[in-house]
């Protein structure tokens, strides 16, 4: 092993979560190294749907609803700073978004869910939504099929090009002096309060701060730092159509048009462990729902399809922690790393730089799982 290389912060994991935090820390002036495993890792950041989506996040967990809203609010600033830093256009378009309902029951369930979100929002950051019936909705999305009963709408939602986002974060990070080390799986580490050593790619890195943002890899890494990250894989599949001329005014939860013109069809959820094989039955269901939503999609060619693994915390809510045993060690895990990139780069990173997570993040600590298990 070579001599230790010293930094002010080590970030483990170069997906959307680690990269957003790394960019935020570099922007705050910290000298950082970002360690990233190779292509064999499961990497949600390269296989997601690209929504910046607040309307369904945090039901029953008002702190998570609020954090997601902060992130949606921070997104325009993040897009602007990435444009300023590296001239990147990540394609942020945030006109609000809809969740389509294909039956009266779906519409009623959705209305209940939205009403609960609004109740839980409280007065400091009210949750504005509308349930829109089909006739009015057709005025917004004329291509809707006859099976669509209506939709929920909130004005906070939008979408981005998630690969451009990942690329822009990496370029902004290295442009600000950050060091990116690929093919660097963290295998060993030594932790002491505000004094960490991490071994990866045959090199030794040391820093007073370490941020664990290794996605599914966090589950194994966290205990080494006196932390826990109970996350599991949850599979999602996506279909991609040929490119067509711009057609939608806004994204939906299951169909959106990319800035290049392809339609992404998705939204499947399966508990299959570490399995990224594609299932024809799931693909057929995605296609069927897309065609019921927008019948013209039946005429389009599907040109690509993939499956990827979400990083799902036990209760679906994000995890942020600072180690009690080894202060200076932080975790960040979530299943909405695109949506939360705004909060991660602009709110979380400054807290980590300052060495203290804000009190509003207390309910996100993984200690919540100990309490529940003990109860």
């Amino acid at each position: 092993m070579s001599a230790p290389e010293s930094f002010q912060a080590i970030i483990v994991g170069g997906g959307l979560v680690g990269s957003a935090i790394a960019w935020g820390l570099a922007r705050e002036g910290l000298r950082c190294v970002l360690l990233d495993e190779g292509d064999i890792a499961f990497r949600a950041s390269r296989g997601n749907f690209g929504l910046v989506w607040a309307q369904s996040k945090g039901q029953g967990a008002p702190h998570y609803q609020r954090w997601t809203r902060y992130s949606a609010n921070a997104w325009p600033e993040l897009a602007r700073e990435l444009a300023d830093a590296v001239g990147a256009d990540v394609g942020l378009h945030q006109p609000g978004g809809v969740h389509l309902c294909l039956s009266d029951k779906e519409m009623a369930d959705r209305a209940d869910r939205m009403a609960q979100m609004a109740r839980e929002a409280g007065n400091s950051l009210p949750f504005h939504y509308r349930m829109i019936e089909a006739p009015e909705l057709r005025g917004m999305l004329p291509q809707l099929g006859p099976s669509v009963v209506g939709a929920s709408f909130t004005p906070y939602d939008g979408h981005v090009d998630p690969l451009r986002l990942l690329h822009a974060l990496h370029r902004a990070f290295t442009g600000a002096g950050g060091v990116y080390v690929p093919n660097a799986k963290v295998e060993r580490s030594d932790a002491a309060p505000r004094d960490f050593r991490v071994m990866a790619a045959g090199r030794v890195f040391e820093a007073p701060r370490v941020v664990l943002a290794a996605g599914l890899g966090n589950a194994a890494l966290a205990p080494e730092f006196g932390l826990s990250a109970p996350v599991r894989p949850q599979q999602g599949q996506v279909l991609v159509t040929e490119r067509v001329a711009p057609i939608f005014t806004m994204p939906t939860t299951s169909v959106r048009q990319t800035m290049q013109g392809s339609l992404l069809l998705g939204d499947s959820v399966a508990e299959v462990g570490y399995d990224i094989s594609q299932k024809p039955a799931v693909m057929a269901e995605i296609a069927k729902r897309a065609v019921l939503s927008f019948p013209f999609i039946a005429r389009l060619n599907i040109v690509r399809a993939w499956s990827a693994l979400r990083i799902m915390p036990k209760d679906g809510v994000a995890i942020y922690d600072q180690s009690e045993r080894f202060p200076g060690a932080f975790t960040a895990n979530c299943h909405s790393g695109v949506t939360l990139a705004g909060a991660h780069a602009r709110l979380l990173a400054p807290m980590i730089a300052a060495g203290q997570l804000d009190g509003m993040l207390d309910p996100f600590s993984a200690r919540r799982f100990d309490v529940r298990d003990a109860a």
Partner: protein
Amino acid sequence: MYATRPEARPATVEVFVDGVAVMVPAGASAAAAVLLAGAAAIRETSISGAPRLPYCMMGVCFDCLAEVDGAPNVQACMVAVAPGMRISRQRGARHV
């Protein structure tokens, strides 16, 4: 999935590449007809409008997208010619 490479055969099928008649062997792909016709381009990309010709000839690059008998965004390398087939330039993104 794979078609065997045809022996050299006489050009017996007439197709039209951007309106220009060209004779090609039976079993050839529409993309082969485009190349035989010496067309300058068969599509203009949907973002920048850059001109493209068939490239991989095996269905992966999508640079052969053309309008074939009125159907937009067809991979010309994946369809065999038929007498009288009209293979025209795909101009930008398909409209739906």
